Each structure stands twice: as structure tokens, then as C-alpha cells.
């Protein structure tokens, strides 16, 4: 499978998982697929700096502790430690993606989730 067709297939899956647009909305799905693939091909981003990602995560652990949410800080630290044996070339990128999508975790995250 070529790079573009693989990306298009993954894009279809992503649209289905995130936007859940009914299959009957063919025109909408087609335009969304095209614009999404175009956005994903945009390479005007710097390469992920793994040390910066690490510092942001350590900063977050500290922030959880500062705002009196120590169990969240401990849980995050534990998961980062557990991830170490599984680290590969893409792990910093995946962690950066999670940091980009993160939404006020010190206020909104719940350990029960």
C-alpha cells in the first residue's frame, strides 16, 4: 500500500472514530477526507524535541502537586515510568500529540476515569 493510500485509509478511520459522520453523508465525508489529508500532509512543523516533551511532562507532574492533586501527579509519574520499556522512535511524538490535545488536566482530570 502506498504512503498516500495508507494515510487516506487511516484518515477514514479517524473521521469515523472522531466525527462519527453518518455514511449517508457522502459529500460531507469526501470533502472532510480531502481537507483532512491535506492538513496532515502539511509538514511545516519542527521536529519533536524529546527533551522538551519530557520537561513538559515533568512540569505537569509538578503542577498536579502544586495544585494539591498529588494522586494525579503520582499516577502520571507511574505511567511514564511504566512506558520506559516500551519507548521507541515515535514515543516522543505520541506524547507530544497527547500534550497538544490535553485540556486543563490540573482542573479537569479525574483519577476515577
Amino acid at each position, binding site marked *: 500500500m502506498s504512503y498516500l493510500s495508507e494515510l487516506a485509509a487511516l484518515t477514514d478511520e*479517524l473521521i469515523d472514530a472522531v*466525527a462519527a*459522520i*453518518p455514511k449517508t453523508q457522502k459529500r460531507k465525508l469526501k470533502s472532510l477526507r480531502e481537507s483532512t489529508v491535506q492538513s496532515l500532509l502539511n509538514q511545516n*512543523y519542527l521536529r519533536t524535541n524529546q527533551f522538551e516533551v519530557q520537561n513538559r511532562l515533568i512540569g505537569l507532574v509538578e503542577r498536579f502537586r502544586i495544585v494539591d492533586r498529588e494522586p494525579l501527579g503520582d*499516577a502520571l509519574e507511574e505511567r511514564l515510568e511504566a512506558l520506559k520499556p516500551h519507548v521507541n522512535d*515515535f514515543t516522543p511524538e505520541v506524547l507530544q*500529540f497527547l500534550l497538544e490535545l490535553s485540556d486543563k488536566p490540573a482542573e479537569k482530570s479525574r483519577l476515577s476515569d
Partner: protein
Amino acid sequence: MEKSEKQAAAQQAVDILHEISTLLNCQLDRRTLSICISMIENGVKPEALAEVVQKLREEGRVLMADIEALAAKPNAARRK
């Protein structure tokens, strides 16, 4: 490492990353996270992917609101 062992290790890594995503309040389910990991492994930049996910969430919300509004219209007309 055997294939099944490799798969088990990969699953474990996704489980841990999913737990991290929950702690960071990323609002990602396991399936979406797995798709996103595959995309990143295919060279997609994390910032571009995060922007796309936000945009798709918004598109999904708008479309669902439109569909609900359309579905509600005939009822409103009937009530008149």
C-alpha cells in the same frame, strides 16, 4: 521476540499511553488513540494531527446539531 509477544507488548504500550491520555484529559478513546499512533508511525506530525482531531470533533458536533435540527423541524411543523 515472537510475533504474539510483540503484539502483547504493543498492546501494553497502547494501554499505558491511553492511561496517560486520560490523565491529561485528552478525551480520546482507545480506538482513536490507536489510529493516531498508526498515523504518527506513518510520519504524520503530532501538531498537525492534534489540530485535525480538534477540527473533526467540531465538524462532528456541527453536523450532529444540523441533523438534530432537521429531525426536529417536521415535529415543529406538525405541532403548528
